[in-house]
């Protein structure tokens, strides 16, 4: 699969932080890749002193929240496991164009580590904020570096898929589409490193 892939920095999160951080990262990605008319909305993280931007699209917000809920449910069942979420963007293939196919596509993927039992200290929180900021700048830089493959300005958000881990040991489910990949998916990085007890 020929697509652009972006591997974001790994983050170690507590269960209570997963939702906050995932929303921040996913919405930042969507904000950069949604080229239709948006209504930017500033949102503060609940536990971190970070403000991110949403597109102001209620349907998208709902979808992101649902996926995060599924992911957090998975994490609860599989604590202290490294896990990842993959966000892919697709474009409907209309006319076969060798030139287009030759173009590299981009994707946004991110890795996430399942919640570890970490002592909550202000130092750790500050370090986490710094890490999340790094991730946001990663997204900013990647989104700007890799934008040639983005198709013409659509009147809607790009087709996309948020893939969360469902079964241990399986790869991130690859998209079964005939459409040209705007994005791809990360190869499986589900490597259970150290299974720690909570």
């Amino acid at each position, binding site marked *: 699969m020929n697509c652009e892939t972006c591997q974001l920095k790994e983050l170690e999160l507590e269960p209570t932080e997963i939702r906050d951080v995932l*929303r921040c990262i996913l919405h*930042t990605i969507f*904000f*950069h890749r949604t*080229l*239709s*008319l*948006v*209504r*930017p*909305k*500033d*949102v*503060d993280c*609940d536990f971190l*002193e*970070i*403000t*991110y*931007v*949403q597109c*102001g699209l*209620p349907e998208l*917000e709902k979808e992101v929240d649902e996926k995060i809920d599924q992911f957090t449910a998975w994490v609860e069942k599989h604590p202290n496991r490294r896990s990842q979420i993959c966000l892919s963007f697709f474009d409907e293939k209309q006319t076969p164009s060798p030139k287009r196919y030759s173009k590299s596509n981009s994707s946004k993927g991110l890795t996430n580590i399942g919640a570890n039992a970490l002592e909550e200290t202000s130092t750790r929180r500050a370090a986490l904020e710094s890490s999340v*900021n790094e991730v*946001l*700048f990663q*997204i*900013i*830089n990647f*989104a*700007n*570096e890799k*934008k040639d493959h*983005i198709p*013409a*300005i659509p009147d809607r958000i790009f087709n996309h898929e948020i893939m969360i881990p469902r079964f241990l040991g399986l790869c991130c489910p690859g998209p079964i589409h005939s459409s040209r990949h705007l994005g791809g998916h990360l190869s499986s990085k589900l490597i259970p490193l150290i299974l720690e007890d909570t």
Partner: protein
Amino acid sequence: MSGMSDSAGGVRAGAELMVEQFHLKVLHAVLAVRTPRPLAAAAAAAASFRRRDRWFHLPLHDPPPPPEAADRLDELAPGEPLVVDVFLCPSGGVGARGEVVERWTVACEPWPDAAGGEEVAVNRAYKHCFTLLRSVYAALRVLPAYRIFRLLCANPSYNYEMGHRVDTFAELFSRTQEAAMRSQRFVPVETQLGRLVVSVQYLPSLAAFNLEITSLSPSVIIPDYVGSPAAEPMRAFPASLTEATGPGFPPSYQQQRPHSWASPAFWPHTPAHQARFSPPPVFYASPTPSPPHFPPRLMRWESAPMPIPQVSERRSPAHRQNMLPPPSPRRGDMGAAGALESPSESGRLIGRMEELRLADPYATSSPRHKGKDNKDESGRFSALSSCDSPRQDDLDDVDYHFDVDDVDTPVSHPRSADGKETGDQVVSSSHKSQDAQVGSLVNLLRNARPLRNPSNSSQTSRAESSEVASASSVTSRRTSDALEELQSFKEIRERLLSRSSAKHQEPPGKP
């Protein structure tokens, strides 16, 4: 041929317009979150955007940049950068140059040769500008200066002010400044005219500025200032109030006065500040910024205390039983010793009064409480309006009476709608002079009827006592608690009298 040249001319004109709008959009985005303004001055979100706001599919809620800033765009020569410096300077330092904490630079760097950009499609360039602007927009909220901006929007009483300077040149940084700064250069967008380049230099940490609230209010003359008990608990009252009991009793806040915790809108920026730093607030009526995460508890503690209860509501004996503060939850002992245990904690009493008083104005639950990302269709940060409400209520509802009816208001439901309604009733009650209120309280203390002797209850018949057993236990709890409170009142009274006597011994003319 002429058609092609017209077409080419039209494309170039389109590219020029796009570049101009790009500069304006970046300037707009930067100033929107780097020009602190009162939260109350934020205008309501527009349900729809004007056509011209939809450039780059990124309408910005905030009003456009002020004319003096936007005019800089007209002065831009090809290739000349637009530089926006954001700086912090000590509060009140009119004319003092602050330290630059951020520098945004936008420029369209022309191609080395005239034909360099002919192959660039305007549509493609336009599309790329979308992503670049979104990156700028997001980065503006990630950089450290954004936090300072939010703090200053919520409370202008900090020891620093944030200002900006828009120009077509950049003053050189010193070596020290240059070394301290980090740079973020966004990937340029190629256009027909040149490459659109956006970069930012910023201080990675602003901790060195030690932002702190310097005073409870900015430099504004408050003619009716009556003082804060938190700062001056034993401050002497005016002479009219000392005739009966002397100073020292918690002052009344009948008159509306601006508080430090009030919305900054009530303290307009001084003209000097406006002229130097930022355009008039009217240009920036955006609710985009939202206040810091002040816990509601903190805000409650910073509110005005309760004044002295009303005279009229002390007359009726029926009210007398209700005049006393709510019973202490732990007192169940009917013994004389227990009943007469002295809390001797006037501060605790006052604190409880505050708690009761505060049950009302903050009854309106703030959606900001948890849902910071309220799905506002307009894209507005809905937390702004919700955070405005408590402060507005705080200003409007300053007549906090230590009123009997309020005392019985259940503390366990401080945010109930009923509590808010009770508070409204308190506010609407008649205003009494402070000395009359002090006098009424003193009369209350002097004329309080003796409490029921616990030993008498044992003389009632068994049948009656069994019937009233539950009622008497409640009553005895109330009585013991009432005794406690009465004791505290007595102590306050003694203190007032002693101060009054001391006052009379002072030479005349002293307030």
